[in-house]
């Protein structure tokens, strides 16, 4: 009986190590002082972070990715929040069709979305432009905003809105002063997910970046095809920290939001 328990514990601890170790090792290696990837690192240093910060191309890609993700946050959060507000009041076939359209990017395999967008955008002359990436990434990010805001709206007491309207507030005033403050955690979580969706996105960027709009994941991909340069380990570690901070924040906020509703 205890033997079974021993093997069970060994197994799940092993799986957790399997999950965590590759990421921990990349982070450790990024502080290596060696000029190539080697185990164990002869000494620790910041040379690969200096290489990253000293490279005009890496920095240009970083700013592009941050800029594109910033625009995606604004567009996806605005469009997605409005749509979530409308969606809760729609019924029947209209609601089903709109919901299906909105969640389709979660279901359609990335490669199909990427080449479909590439097919159309090459005609609109949007390939190799940041605008093309913003438009495409917004479509991929919108489902996260709509689901997050919809979850907030589902926990919203509708009588509060009715009370505001009944007391003479305009629909806009009701939205601004009652609805929006109550759903703001959902809107914020959606915005954070939209940011990460765009910042980490690679498959669409493989087709849309061209030579004029090389995002950070795209530059990592291009470099990886030739050699495993430790600069990528440094860039990876920085993006892991950024996404962990953002999504960890979103996770905490969502949990706190759930507690507040109860």
């Amino acid at each position, binding site marked *: *009986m205890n033997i*079974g328990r021993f093997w*069970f*514990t060994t*197994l*799940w601890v092993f*799986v*957790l190590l*399997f*999950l965590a170790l*590759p990421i921990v090792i*990349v982070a450790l*290696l990024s502080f290596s002082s060696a000029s190539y*990837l*080697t*185990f164990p690192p002869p000494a620790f240093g910041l040379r690969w972070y200096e290489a990253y910060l000293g490279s005009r191309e890496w920095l240009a890609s970083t700013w592009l990715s941050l800029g594109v993700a910033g625009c995606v946050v604004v567009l996806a959060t605005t*469009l*997605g929040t*409005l*749509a979530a*507000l*409308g969606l809760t*009041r*729609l019924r029947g076939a209209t609601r089903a069709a*709109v919901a299906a*359209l*909105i969640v*389709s990017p979660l*279901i*359609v*395999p*990335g*490669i*199909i979305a990427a*080449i*479909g967008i590439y*097919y*159309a955008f090459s005609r609109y002359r949007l390939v190799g432009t940041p605008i093309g990436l913003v*438009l*495409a990434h*917004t*479509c991929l990010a*919108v489902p*996260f905003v*709509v689901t997050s805001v919809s979850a907030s709206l589902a926990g919203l007491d509708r009588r509060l809105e009715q009370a505001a*309207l*009944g007391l003479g507030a305009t*629909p806009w005033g009701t939205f601004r002063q009652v609805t929006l403050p109550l759903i703001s955690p959902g809107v914020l979580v959606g915005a954070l*997910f939209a940011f990460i969706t765009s910042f*980490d996105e*690679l498959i669409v960027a493989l087709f849309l970046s061209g030579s004029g709009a090389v995002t950070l*994941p795209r530059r*990592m991909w291009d470099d*990886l095809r030739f050699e*495993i340069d430790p600069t990528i380990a440094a860039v*990876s570690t920085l*993006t892991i920290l950024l*996404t*962990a901070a953002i999504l960890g924040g979103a996770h905490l906020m*969502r949990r706190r939001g759930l507690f507040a509703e109860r």
Partner: protein
Amino acid sequence: MIPAAAVAVPVRRTVTLAPVLLVAPLVAFMLIFYALPLAAMLSRSVSDPTWTLENYRRLAGDTVFLRVFWTTLRTALAVTIGALLLGYPVALAMSRLRRTAAGVVLIIVLLPFWTSVLVRSYAWMVLLGRKGLINEVLIATGLTDTPLKLLNTSLAVHVAMIHILLPYMILPIASVLRQMDEALPRAAAGLGAPPWNVFARVTLPLSMPGVAAGVLLVFVLSLGFYITPALVGGPRDFMLSMLIAQQVDLLNWPYAACLSATLLAATLLIIAVFQYLPGVRDVLKTVPR
């Protein structure tokens, strides 16, 4: 006092007119930049050069497609089974641990979940390379003299994909196990069932909706995987998504569209089947990104 009717009018108006206007901007945006581009691309499979189903008819005898499709299915199946076998114990442990310990496990599961697929694939390139950590350890311990070829093999694809998709298996199963009535396994144990029987005849059957949801997520995501097999796979691991990308590079749009429609149809078919399994829909709603 204001008469009730005077209050009801503005309320009624916002309820009927607003919803369509609120969803319209997003619907228009997604139609123009997402749905219509996809439809236009997919339509090339039946409209090039004239309206025909010839492309699809040819797939049945297309040896390249059949081999790639088989590789894709085989990989997705191996990854799903691997993720289930490794993921279930972690989900079970999460449901049995105390609150703080379960929270630590959740963070360890979520950390790789939040790291991009590209970075995680890169991590496996670093680990599995000729001079990677695993080969260095094998040589240092004397298990092998020459470095093994681990990178660019099917093994690398399976290991890296299982690593990347494991959270999609663990989270739905853990969600079901957490909501399970703890009195049921305790009652079985109290009535004299040995631990293995409690698991096999009470806990496991009750967690099946979570297993089904996890299997659905991992299998469907595996089918369309592109980045990981392209980076860590060898020539024998050429998946459907890679064939599609290759055909686009060759500007062979009718064939690429035909392959895309096939992959999409397979994905939708599997989702449609799994959606009707009991409890799966409810579990999928509880899973975070």
